[in-house]
């Protein structure tokens, strides 16, 4: 495979760097300049101004921070919880497995984003609550995948041999199960990051995520829709950002899958 820097890798690299540096940059995302309201891009403000005369470029950067923070927190929590639940369900089987599968089925049958909206509404708006709501929805996919993968690996002879040696469940999980099922889980995680970026934007779009005056790509799009015909740059900038980041993550995920999905003998 080629190790050259590809377009998706560059996009994600920029996204991460900008998001991580956002705190240290001299940004003024909340400074209102009334005479510049809805002004299109110009020399000092290369993405223009929004409906309150704030710099869209600066708000975009703060939005990148929000999306990165939410995406990684949610995926991290979901991956951890989901994998654990999935492995335990497959390992112990019986009624414990039946209950887990039942719960997973219910979660999957219910539209995820709708549940997240309901939860975010219930918990009240805010970024922490958005993370909690999305995690509650997010672990299900990982649990299902981890369970299925564990079921196939569980009956391999080296697992039986480890059991026969008297090895405990935690050591078996970390040395015999996780290393062998990690590849599909990591790939699933990349796609989950893409999904979460969109979900966060959706929640913020509905006003359930980040609260004003803080910036998020979703809330920026919401604000922009009202002025779409007068100032299309307000929607286009965050819209294109979401589009590019999600596309890039998906492309990278695909590539990762091709690389990692070598069946081990």
């Amino acid at each position: 495979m080629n190790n050259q820097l590809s377009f998706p890798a560059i996009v994600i690299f920029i996204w991460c760097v900008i998001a991580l540096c956002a705190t240290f940059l001299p940004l003024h995302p909340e400074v209102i300049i009334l005479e510049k309201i809805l002004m299109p891009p110009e020399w000092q403000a290369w993405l223009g101004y929004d409906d309150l005369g704030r710099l869209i470029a600066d708000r975009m950067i703060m939005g990148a921070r929000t999306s990165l923070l939410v995406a990684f927190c949610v995926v991290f929590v979901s991956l951890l919880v989901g994998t654990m639940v999935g492995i335990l369900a497959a390992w112990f089987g019986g009624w414990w497995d039946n209950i887990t599968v039942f719960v997973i089925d219910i979660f999957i049958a219910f539209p995820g984003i709708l549940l997240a909206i309901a939860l975010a509404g219930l918990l009240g708006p805010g970024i922490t609550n958005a993370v909690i709501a999305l995690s509650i929805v997010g672990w299900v996919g990982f649990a299902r995948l981890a369970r299925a993968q564990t079921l196939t690996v569980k009956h391999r002879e080296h697992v039986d041999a480890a059991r026969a040696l008297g090895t405990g469940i935690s050591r078996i999980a970390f040395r015999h199960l996780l290393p062998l099922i990690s590849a599909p889980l990591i790939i699933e995680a990349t796609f989950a990051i893409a999904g979460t970026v969109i979900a966060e934007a959706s929640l913020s779009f509905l006003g359930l995520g980040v609260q004003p005056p803080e910036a998020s790509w979703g809330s920026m799009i919401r604000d922009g829709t009202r002025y779409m015909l007068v100032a299309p740059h307000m929607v286009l900038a965050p819209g294109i950002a979401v589009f590019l980041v999600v596309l890039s993550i998906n492309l990278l995920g695909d590539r990762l899958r091709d690389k990692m999905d070598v069946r081990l003998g």
Partner: protein
Amino acid sequence: MSTLLEVENLKTWFGEGENAIRAVDGIDFKISQGETFVLLGESGCGKSITALSIMRLLPPAAKIKSGSVKLNGKNLFELPEYAMRDVRGGKIAMIFQEPQTSLNPVLTAGQQIGETLQCHKGLKGRAQRDRTIELLNAVGIPEAERRIDEYPHQFSGGMKQRIMIAIALAGEPELLIADEPTTALDVTIQAQILQLLEKLQQETGMAILFITHDLGVTSGIADHVAVMYAGKIVEINSRDAFFAAPQHEYSRHLFSALPSREKRNREMAESGKENKHLSDSPLLTVNDLKVHYPIRKGLFKKVVGYVRAVDGVTIEIRKGQTVAIVGESGSGKTTMGKGILQLIRPTDGGVLFDGRELTQITGEELRRKRSDIQIVFQDPYSSMNPRMMIADIVEEGMLAQGIGKNRGERMQRVDKLLEQVGLKPEHKYRYPHEFSGGQRQRICIARALAVEPKLIVCDEPTSALDVSVQSQILELLKELQERLGLAYLFITHNISVVEYIAHYVAVMYDGKIVEQGNVDEVLYQPRHPYTQKLLSAVPRIKTAGRR
């Protein structure tokens, strides 16, 4: 008899230039009309590639570098591809090792045979169906009129191989290439298939190129034998001459690697002692062990019946003793082994080990007790975690049982264990895929020995290995038994291995033990009809002249 197939200086290589793998490296042989020519060799020696070269069905990476294959004087390598299609199936037919995967699962047996009939004989409709039924009858499938419309999964392994043979016969070939056609089958089925091939050969007069690694099978069917080693034919001889006095060193090595009672007696005479560890009190007592699996059906998973995998097995093993469990696939041998180890919890019955009832204990106590009984599996490829280093694999049991104070102490023990099984300490920083099948099996044995077991369940530990490697592993197991006083529960389907290694043998059939006793009693005066049938099916090397 005139020559049917002539192979001259055939070279088939994988890759190019210096690094090319010379799978077949300049072989010559001739097959006469109506004879059975056996190509004998161990895995990786180039037998199958030879067959595929003749058919011109090589994988893309392989190239025929030189040589010719002449069928009735016509060089097959000069034919265009479309003409080759008439040869395949029409003049030369082929059957493969694995009948499970050689048939198309979505077509009926009749459709698959009919395809060949249509291609090579132009038969259609009624005539095709009649001929298909005729062929199914010829290969001994009962109720052919009904079974013609059944799918492969409705047939057993032996039946599938019969259907494969029927497909091969459909084109009325002059040569049948059989690539290890009985290796995946049980001995009793193997005997039936070999008889069938012999009968069909007499009826049709076709020649058979039979590829095998089994000396016993060879002695039963061959007219001529060619021994292949590392891409070359090292010896060609008539069957009688070959079995009377093998010429090449490698051929003699194959014979000496065969396990047998004679070999064991000879070794016993040499060492002058037998089983100083053997005691009278039983180490393990299995009492009426049952493992039943529920069959669930319907929406609410109602239990409608049970698969009685192990159905009331009673057996005793003493310290330092080797007890062999013999039986065909599906007889419940492996399930029984796992039931003893408590890897599968038995449905009923008792497993008394060293005065402790294993079926009653759970949790931490069971984990501690596990060090006493270990297991070595059949497939050395899947029985080790590919992501773990040898050091970690062998260390695992010590960690679980709390043997050794620190990593350094445990590593010293790993070194010792590796030396004990004939490997070098520096091997420990490698991964499983860097080792051969025999070496992996040694590592598995070292892993089992790490926790100082008293009993090792050996589940077909040599079935996946070549004969010469098998004999090394069996010798290692014997030596360890002598040194450490281990008891073995040796699960196998190979009678000659039993003769070589076991003291006591139990014959298992359909989840039950039908006969048990000392090796000499059971194997030489079998009383139960199933044991008799099993033993008579084992292909043996016969002395010259008789057949």
